[in-house]
């Protein structure tokens, strides 16, 4: 049986390989029999490199070989660049520069040689092994490339032509910086002659060229009239020079925000006021109560909710805060966190129900949540400052935006995961949509919702600290202040305090969830 099997495979190998079928047939046979020598090299791949790979239609090998050869070529171009620089520096008589450039030139030359040789050896070694995998895939899917084809060599050459010259040119030149390119663009606008080489360099090997030049937008101001109303005053832009897209759009955004603040200021003021009322109520509890009462209540609550060990831990945390003089600041941070959590839960719960119940809700809210969760937390501070200025309310607002997504998501998830059969049973006994929600869906989703609350608390705490940058105060302020004045010790002590508060709250909330 064995010989006929051998010849079967051999025929298939030869059919696949086409040109030089005997060599590939024998090699593949040895791979199948696990008899390929460890140092086996494919000489045509070694010599031809990526060209061999493109001829054979194995694009993985093509890209590996091409990338290595390309890096070697770039190194050679750098050798050329620094050699020219050496000539220039010698002419200028700057000896230290001559030495430096000479050294760089030598290093790049060595790198180029090593890379080229090692790359080719690697390709020669990989070639037959990967080509065999290529064969295995081809057996399943005959539309994959097999044999040799001049057409594929052509495609490979085109790729090389597209990539290699510009890349090598870029490496051999000192690229112009952004400023000189802007200068060049202005000169072109003013109708002056500029050398073709500079123009080419700015377009291809510097920053992406500025394609769009726009008229600077006019400046809007919204002064208050005597009767308290606002009017819109338009002024010509300060300069007639055109600006790029970035500049143009950011000025428009600024003016939009200015408009909103001028004409809808009452809205933002109203929001700020309500947040402040809530915060004052919370602060009255945590900050306004004497430390003896608050700490006792904390410890009793921890013992009742999470057991005596958590009580001891809570006591230790509170002692740390008290001893290092963080008591008031820590309570302020806790107040901010609690206020933000309350808003998150109150707003997030109905939103989550909406997402779970309505396709429209899911279509609107889900992408917004996705964006909210990808944006880095620092970025939330910007709109908060833009519309609500600085202080605690905008800090809470940024925190709410940052911490709300898990509340919405986990509420929706919990409701969606209520078994359809359970809901059906409730409906079969005559439940109305409201009764279904209150008596079946929300109770069954409760574990998920509580996990959401836990997440909200932790995220709020972390964001409240960051919000100190915009004046939310609390423990975060000590860290930010210490950072600005490089008082490392003070910052570290406050940081440990924050971590302890986080651990304390997290453990207690988790224990409560598990009950």
């Amino acid at each position, binding site marked *: 049986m064995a010989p006929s099997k051998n010849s079967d495979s051999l025929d298939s190998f030869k059919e696949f390989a086409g040109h030089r079928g005997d060599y590939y047939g024998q090699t593949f046979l040895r791979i199948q029999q696990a008899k390929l020598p460890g140092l086996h090299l494919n000489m045509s791949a070694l010599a031809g490199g990526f060209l061999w790979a493109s001829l054979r239609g194995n694009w993985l090998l093509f890209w590996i070989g091409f990338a290595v050869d390309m890096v070697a070529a770039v190194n050679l171009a750098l050798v050329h660049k620094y050699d020219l620089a050496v000539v220039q520096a010698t002419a200028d008589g700057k000896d230290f520069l001559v030495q430096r450039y000479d050294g760089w030139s030598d290093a790049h030359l060595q790198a180029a040689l090593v890379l080229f040789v090692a790359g080719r050896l690697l390709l020669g070694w990989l070639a037959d092994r990967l080509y065999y995998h290529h064969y295995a895939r081809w057996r399943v899917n005959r539309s994959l490339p097999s044999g040799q084809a001049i057409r594929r060599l052509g495609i490979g050459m085109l790729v090389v032509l597209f990539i290699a010259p510009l890349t090598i040119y870029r490496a051999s030149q000192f690229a112009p910086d952004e400023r000189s390119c802007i200068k060049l663009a202005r000169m072109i606008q003013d109708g002056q002659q500029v050398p073709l080489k500079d123009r080419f360099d700015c377009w291809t090997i510097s920053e992406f060229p500025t394609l769009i030049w726009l008229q600077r937008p006019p400046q809007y101001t919204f002064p208050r009239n005597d009767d308290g109303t606002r009017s819109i005053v338009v002024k010509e832009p300060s300069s007639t020079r055109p600006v790029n897209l970035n500049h143009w759009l950011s000025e428009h955004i600024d003016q939009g925000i200015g408009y909103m603040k001028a004409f809808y200021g009452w809205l933002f003021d109203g929001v700020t006021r309500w947040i402040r009322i809530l915060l004052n109520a919370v602060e009255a509890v945590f900050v306004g109560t004497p430390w003896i009462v608050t700490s006792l209540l904390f410890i009793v609550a921890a013992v009742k909710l999470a057991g005596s060990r958590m009580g001891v831990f809570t006591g230790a945390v509170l002692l740390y805060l008290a001893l290092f003089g963080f008591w008031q600041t820590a309570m302020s941070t806790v107040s901010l966190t609690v206020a933000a959590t309350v808003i998150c839960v109150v707003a997030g719960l109905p939103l989550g129900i909406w997402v779970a119940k309505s396709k429209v809700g899911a279509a609107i809210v889900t992408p917004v949540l996705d964006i909210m969760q990808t944006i880095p937390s620092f970025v939330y501070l910007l709109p908060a400052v833009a519309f609500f200025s600085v202080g605690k309310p905008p800090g809470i607002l940024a925190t709410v935006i940052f911490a709300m997504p898990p509340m919405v998501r986990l509420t929706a998830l919990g409701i969606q995961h209520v078994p359809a059969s*359970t809901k059906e049973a409730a409906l079969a*006994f*005559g439940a109305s949509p409201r009764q279904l929600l209150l*008596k079946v869906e929300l109770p069954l989703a409760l574990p998920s919702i509580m996990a959401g609350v836990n997440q909200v608390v932790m995220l709020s705490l972390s964001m409240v600290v960051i919000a100190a940058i915009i004046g939310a105060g609390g423990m975060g302020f000590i860290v930010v202040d210490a950072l600005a004045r490089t008082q490392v010790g003070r910052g570290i002590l406050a940081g440990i305090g924050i971590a302890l508060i986080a651990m304390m709250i997290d453990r207690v909330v988790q224990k409560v969830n598990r009950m």
Partner: protein
Amino acid sequence: MVIEVRNVWKIFGERAEEVLRAIQRDNLHKTKVLERFGAVVAVRDVSFAVKRGEIFCIMGLSGSGKSTLVRHINRLIQPTDGQILIKGQDIGALPTEALRTLRADQIGMVFQNMALLPHRTVRDNIAFALELRNTDPFTRHQLADRMLETVSLQGYGDAMPSELSGGMQQRVGLARALAADPAILLMDEPFSALDPLIRRGLQDEFLALSQTMNKTTVFITHDLDEAMRMGSRIGIMRDGEMVQVGTPEDIIIHPKDGYVADFVQGLSRLKLVFAHRIMEQPETYNKTHGNLAEVDTWPQAHPQADLNSLVSLIVGQDCPIAIRDDDKLAGIVTKDALLKGIQGPSS
């Protein structure tokens, strides 16, 4: 008639109405519909009626549309076409609020997977339907405790469903369905998930219960034995169609087609076929065997006696059985006829 189902169609998929018209026009088969419209015909032109106090079994393999059909009766599913009448009232025309009242007051339902609310005690589960109707806690808890007694689970009111075994959970499911004292019970494969011994016990208990409580029951099952045990009448479904409706005896003696015949073939006829089906007329017997002189000394049986009891009568006897209806000789069952009757017609 408590429940009347008239020409009900259910087609799942978009453009259901259009698909329905196409099917009615061209008489398409289920697979053709799926191929051409991507729509699934779950229920196909089904009509039947259930009398007061009857247990109507709907029997079919999985995917035959029986669970879909039963959900039409309390309108958990809207029919694509056709009417469902409960006590003569077309429930397709009911406004939402009236439909909810109907579900809460008139129709109790028991599910294969129990579908109890895991966060509530057994008592609160049983009282769920009453709670939905805003009955006060005192009344509904008293009622729940009475129901627990009915299903012999007294004392388990404060347990959580997860603490009970499968059989006990299904008793709770039954108690919940009975709590609002509905006229109609819908049982969707209630005992299928239970192991055979417990299933048997619950079947007997349910039969006894339904005789005393006089509920009208629609009972879904994929188990023919169960259907034969429970059903006053049986409807056999295949591919969304009601193939045959009849009493267990009807179906076993006169299967309508090969499909039904295949089903009933392996079934024990001992308790499902009765003496009058297999007896010979006295005259015929007289012609073939003669000798009716000793008929009074033969064992006696009623025409409604099942084959099982006839076997007990004839064992150890050398003579046939005389079948008497009100002292009048109705027929004769010989040993041969009895054996043939047990074997059935097919083989």
